[in-house]
């Protein structure tokens, strides 16, 4: 589904990613772990199409297409979803409006009929239950006055409604209490099907107790220093990142 080869990325002339190789197949959940500043969030944002990142080398292929030639909105319509670490507030745009505009843009792209108001609301209500959110929040402005936990639930709600093929979750677990963490994990697990893939970017192993990854990668200084199965996450939890960093330098 996603194939990254030798990806080099600079931000403000500073190299951040220095040759990433990563293959994610449909049905898999990958966890990308690593110390602060290793380039995890950069990787997630580059894949989602954020401007301001300069790709100096390498290729990214997504479902046979050159991902880097697509705009952010084209990527979203092709089924990529980025769950933000810090979702912005957008005063004056309601959550329900955003969901409808997004869902219809994606459906139109797939050649599907736009949902009418009744079907749309039914779908939103079903997903609200999944993430344990009140419908009232849907009529408020996007993330305006939302707590940290509500914002993350809102990201998972959007993901659940939009049903992406490839979900990139950027530190969705940060700042969550255990209940919110479980809710977020439920949302992610509900999305796991043989046709979909999930890339979870996280600093801690905690979320991975609930969303069990097929592959774990450790990102150090812009490169994948080590990959393994879920046992690697436990090992990192026990031993920290130091040993991988030393091994990477050696």
């Amino acid at each position, binding site marked *: 589904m996603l194939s990254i080869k030798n990806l080099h990325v600079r931000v403000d002339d500073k190299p951040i990613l220095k040759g990433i190789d990563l293959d994610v197949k449909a049905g898999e959940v990958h966890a990308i772990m690593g110390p602060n500043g290793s380039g995890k969030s950069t990787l997630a944002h580059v894949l989602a*199409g954020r401007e301001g990142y300069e790709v100096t080398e390498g290729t990214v292929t997504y479902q046979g297409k050159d991902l880097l030639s697509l705009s952010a909105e084209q990527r979203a319509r092709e089924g990529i979803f980025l769950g*933000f670490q810090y979702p912005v507030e*957008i005063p*004056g745009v309601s959550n329900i*409006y955003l969901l409808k*505009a*997004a869902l219809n*843009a*994606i459906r139109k792209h797939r050649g599907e009929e736009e949902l009418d108001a009744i079907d749309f609301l039914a779908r939103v209500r079903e997903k609200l239950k999944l993430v344990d959110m009140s419908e009232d929040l849907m009529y408020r*402005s996007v993330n305006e006055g939302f707590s940290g936990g509500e914002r993350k639930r809102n990201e998972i709600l959007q993901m659940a409604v939009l049903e992406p093929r490839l979900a990139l979750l950027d530190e969705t677990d940060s700042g969550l209490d255990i209940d919110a963490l479980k809710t977020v994990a439920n949302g992610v697990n509900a999305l796991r099907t043989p046709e979909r893939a999930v890339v979870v970017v996280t600093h801690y192993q905690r979320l991975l107790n609930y969303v069990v990854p097929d592959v774990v990668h450790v990102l150090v200084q812009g490169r994948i220093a080590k990959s393994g199965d879920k046992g690697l996450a436990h090992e990192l939890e026990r031993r920290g990142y130091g040993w991988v960093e030393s091994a990477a330098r050696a």
Partner: protein
Amino acid sequence: MVNTETDPKHRYLQAARALNSQLPGHRAWIKALRERASARFDAVGFPTMRDEAWKYTNLASLVRQPFHAVSDATPLTREQLERLLPNAFDAFRLVFINGRYRPELSNPPHVDGREIARPLADALDRDAEALEPHLGQVVSIEAHPLAALNTAFLADGAYVSLPEGVALERPIHLIYVATADALAQPRALIVARSGSRATVVEQYVGIDESRYFTNAVTEVVLERGARVEHYRLQTESRLGFHVNGLHVRQHENSEFISQAIDLGGLLVRNDLYALLDAPGASCSLNGLYVADGRQHVDNHTYIAHAKPRCTSREFYKGVLDGRGRAVFNGRVVVQPDAQRTDAEQINNNLLLSEDAEIDTKPELEIYADDVKCSHGATVGQLDLDQLFYLRSRGVDDAQARDLLTFAFANDVLRRFRIAPLRAMLEHSITTRLLRGRKLRELELI
């Protein structure tokens, strides 16, 4: 040597003098008020950019135009009026053409057989005692030369008098229509007695795309515990000149809400003065101005905290495109007596083009020590984080920009309680800012 035939100041004053004997109101104080106003305008004339309060707004193009103080009854049919007011909302209506009341187009409200909104001309003739403590007393004609010009012609307008304890559900809609080449000088006095509540909408429109000069003055008095929600809808012709003074005096525990919209006009200047004159009074001033083409919109606001425990909230936003230009000058003065004042002021501006311009100047003067005050102003383009967020959800760049532009303006509109009015303004804003491009799921906002 001034040529008094062509000098605009003298021409207007001569017109006022010629009309004086025909104007309503026989009481000495009414004539004295007009004469004092004439003398004041004669002494100061039109403001120029040398006046601090007019530093960014040049009236030269207005002064050059030969507008006429018309008193004749320009015909206007009900159909023509409806065309000027798309998406009209359910309200009591008083319609004025060039400042003169038109009963055939109006349906004023009554409470217990008494008209609680009626033409000022009628009140000047028959109810002068009720007007005397308020008319010309809230506005300072010394501080506002154009209010002096308006007062020199004082003849007609709207008089809204809310009896004690009366709560009016249906809004009162005061509609001021100006015709080509007119000097239209609408005037309104709103007196809300103790505990009364009402919504008053003042709307300014022009016939077709004509050139004229609206010079309006509104005075509002809120007695103890009264609550008035006031809308100023400036939807003038794109060639119109509009000068507006809204002057408010508030007594104990009264609440004044101002919702001000500037969409039309070529050259627009609004002065809003709120005097919090007794403990516990509060005011909330919301404003949205949109300027493109060569429009110039200047909003000057002045909130005077004179007494303790008063609250003021001010929230003004502007969207500027093309060569549109705006001025925001928001002054909050906390006088020595006004302990425990709570004041907040925000002015945010969105510039959509290279040539658009805003001069924003929040001013806070505090002469008391136990106060909570804040103010801030921003000027900027669309927020890139918000833009990326929308795009990352599949919304295309152009639609995301439209949505954020609309949302910026809608942040003010959503505070409006009259739903059909909100819908009308949403429609106007999308037509203007998005050049007719539709936000398809708008009904969901």
